[in-house]
């Protein structure tokens, strides 16, 4: 699914990623844990194509394509989805019309007709219900005035609607209370399948208690310094990163 090789990335001439190697197979869930400022979000934004992040060297293959040659919208259309740590507010655009637009953009790319309004509403109601999102939230402007939890749920909802192959969750658990974390994790677990992979970036073990990872990587100083199974997350939870 994804093969990252010797990736080096800078932000405003500060080297953040210093030779990242990571391979992710179809259906696998990889957790990336690391202390603040270690560069975890840089991985997420670089893969999604954020122009603020400059790739200095290395390569990334996504479904056998050179990911770094694609612009952000092409990466999305090819099946990559980034759930933002800080979802962006978009005043003046209703959430419902935005969600319908992104669904239709993906349908068009696949050669499908735009979704019928009543069919979209039916799907939106069903998927919102799974995440305990009130339907009237969609008449509000995108993420504007949403609570932290509502914003994160809206990210997971977009993921569900777009049906991606590779999902990168950038600290989706931050800002969620216990119930919201359980609902969000439940929705993510329902989306796990043999042709969908996940990169879960988190500080804490608690998210990984709901979403069981196949692999855990410890990320520090711009590279992976240790990899293992879930037991590695348990070790970090008790001993911290310093040891």
């Amino acid at each position, binding site marked *: 699914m994804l093969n990252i090789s010797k990736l080096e990335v800078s932000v405003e001439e500060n080297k953040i990623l210093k030779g990242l190697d990571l391979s992710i197979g179809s259906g696998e869930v990889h957790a990336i844990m690391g202390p603040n400022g270690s560069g975890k979000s840089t991985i997420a934004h670089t893969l999604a194509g954020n122009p603020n992040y400059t790739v200095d060297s290395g390569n990334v293959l996504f479904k056998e394509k050179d990911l770094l040659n694609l612009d*952000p919208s092409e990466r999305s259309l090819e099946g990559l989805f980034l759930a*933002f740590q800080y979802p962006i507010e978009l005043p003046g655009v209703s959430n419902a019309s935005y969600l319908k637009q992104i669904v239709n*953009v993906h349908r068009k790319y696949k050669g499908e007709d735009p979704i019928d309004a009543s069919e979209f509403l039916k799907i939106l109601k069903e998927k919102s219900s799974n995440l305990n999102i009130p339907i009237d939230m969609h008449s509000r402007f995108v993420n504007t005035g949403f609570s932290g939890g509502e914003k994160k749920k809206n990210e997971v909802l977009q993921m569900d609607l777009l049906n991606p192959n590779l999902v990168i969750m950038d600290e989706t658990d931050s800002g969620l209370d216990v119930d919201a974390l359980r609902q969000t994790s439940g929705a993510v677990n329902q989306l796990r399948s043999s042709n969908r992979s996940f990169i879960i970036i988190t500080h804490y073990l608690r998210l990984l208690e709901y979403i069981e990872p196949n692999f855990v990587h410890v990320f520090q100083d711009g590279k992976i310094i240790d990899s293992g199974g879930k037991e590695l997350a348990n070790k970090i939870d008790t001993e911290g990163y310093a040891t």
Partner: protein
Amino acid sequence: MNKLNSKISTQDCFIEVVSDDVIITNNCNEIKHQVSENKGCIYLDIRVSESKIIPRITFKIKREDFISIQLKLTLLNGAKLEILDESEYMHGTKMEFITELGKRSSFELYRLNIFNELTENSYLHQCRLSKDCVFKDFNFTNGSKLMKNETEVSLADENAKYIGSGVVITNSTNCDNSLKINHISPSAISDCSFKTVSRGNANVTFNGKVIVRENCNNSVSSQISKGLIMDENANVNLIPELEISNDDVVCSHGAASGKPDENVLFYLTSRGISRKEAEKVYIQGFLGEFVDKIDNAQMKAKAKQFISQNS
């Protein structure tokens, strides 16, 4: 809802200007009018009396040459009127409106106009508001080579209220917009906003002046102007001016212009929307907040459609 309100309905009147003829259809009894023409200049004198219906005049200008229209509009005490101008002006225009609003009257003006980008156009509206009347003034335009929009509002009596908004979306224009609000009576209200999206080599100016005279206690005035600069050579000049001569007032103003937020554009493109479409969504969002000020559902839908087609 009381009995009187429950009987209020709308009745449409269409004014079509075709060639040298002015055709008025479905005219309702509450509107009295006189039309005359002199060398390409059309004079309309319209008086509206109080009634239980809300007349709506829809302008449909189809003339195939430069047009000059002078409109004198009088709303008598308690009268209500909506004017909708959705004309596409392809050959240049000169418009002069003079509006007198009587006590307790209500006037809503919606101008959603497309202009030929190569033409020159001017619009001057002078209006005087009496006690307890409301004027809602919404202007949407794509701009043109040379455009001058000028509105002067006199709040001449207590509780007169002006809500005015202008939107210019343009890529080939020198567009001067001027809005002068004159509080000449106590306890009047003005609420003005102006937004522009400037593209290509466009140069858009907004001069918003609010004058509150010495005797005008309890005046309330708000003015917001915002510009979105989409291209390197586009320009926006926002000039708020306040002359407040009374301490017992609530007056606020704000002006801001800049380029689109790249973080927002990245968020949109990360969902599969192309950069070009993302900019369009951004513009619709920028102006969408503003459209929410329109409480007439039918007009709000028309304004949204106008923005969608021109962003």
